């Protein structure tokens, strides 16, 4: 299913697209623009990502160093953080 969209471009940009078409890189203006949009979206996954990280940061409490050290003392009790980090690298 395809959809036709209308968009405005500067003359300079259209000229560049037409040059790329005339040199055989694309079949048509439409093909050129489709490929360019597709490639841009592939190269910029960040456009669709990041929400989870933002949620993780906004929905978690801000803790002081003392509070984090208290949490760390329980979280890492009997564990070596150096070893835990190293295990994660295996």
């Amino acid at each position, binding site marked *: 299913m395809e959809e036709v969209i209308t968009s405005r471009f500067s003359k300079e940009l259209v000229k560049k697209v037409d040059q790329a078409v005339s040199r055989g890189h694309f079949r048509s203006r439409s093909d050129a623009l489709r490929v360019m949009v597709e490639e841009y979206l592939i190269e910029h996954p960040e456009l669709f990502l990041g929400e989870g990280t933002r949620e*993780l*940061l906004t*929905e*978690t*409490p*801000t*803790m002081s*160093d003392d509070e*984090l*050290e208290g*949490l*760390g*003392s*329980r*979280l*890492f*009790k*009997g*564990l*070596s*953080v*150096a070893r*835990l*980090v*190293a*295990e*994660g*690298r*295996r």
Partner: protein
Amino acid sequence: MRTLLYLDTNIILARYAPDEPQHDEAKNLLVKIEEGKLAAVTSILTLIEVVSTTSRAYERFKDKAESIKREEVAGAFLRRVINIRNLDFIPMGGEISINVEEQRVKLPALFAVALEIGSKTGVKTLDNIHLAAASIASRIYGQKIDYFITLDEDLLKHKEEIKDLIEVKVATPAEISEMTFDS
């Protein structure tokens, strides 16, 4: 010029783990960094390791009488690490194209350097990424990293090899705690 350190993930976590043998030294180091007496960098990989390490530690911790959720634990540490003053994060960098005959692979600059380092050392894959970040940091800052601070036994075992390869001395917090730094 301030002494520039590369901090491994285990140093940052050791600062919040009182049972860790070099907790006090790691804590003192982080205090000096936040006070601006030392400058420090780390890789963005550190952020992922902080989250995954605290999350794995939570596996053992979850049965205890705590109301805090796993995501809250990981998020709280992540939030604090991002907020450490005078600690910069080395990004992945732009992409570098590698062509082999007909095939082309695009790699972030950090991975390209890690690939190069990995071919010359016997260290683990993710350790290579930290070493690559330290190597890139020297180029970004125009100042060599003075010390790569770690508690990783494998990296410490390869310290001479690493020094030859990326021209950075590998040390533990305890080893540098007695040194006087220029400020």
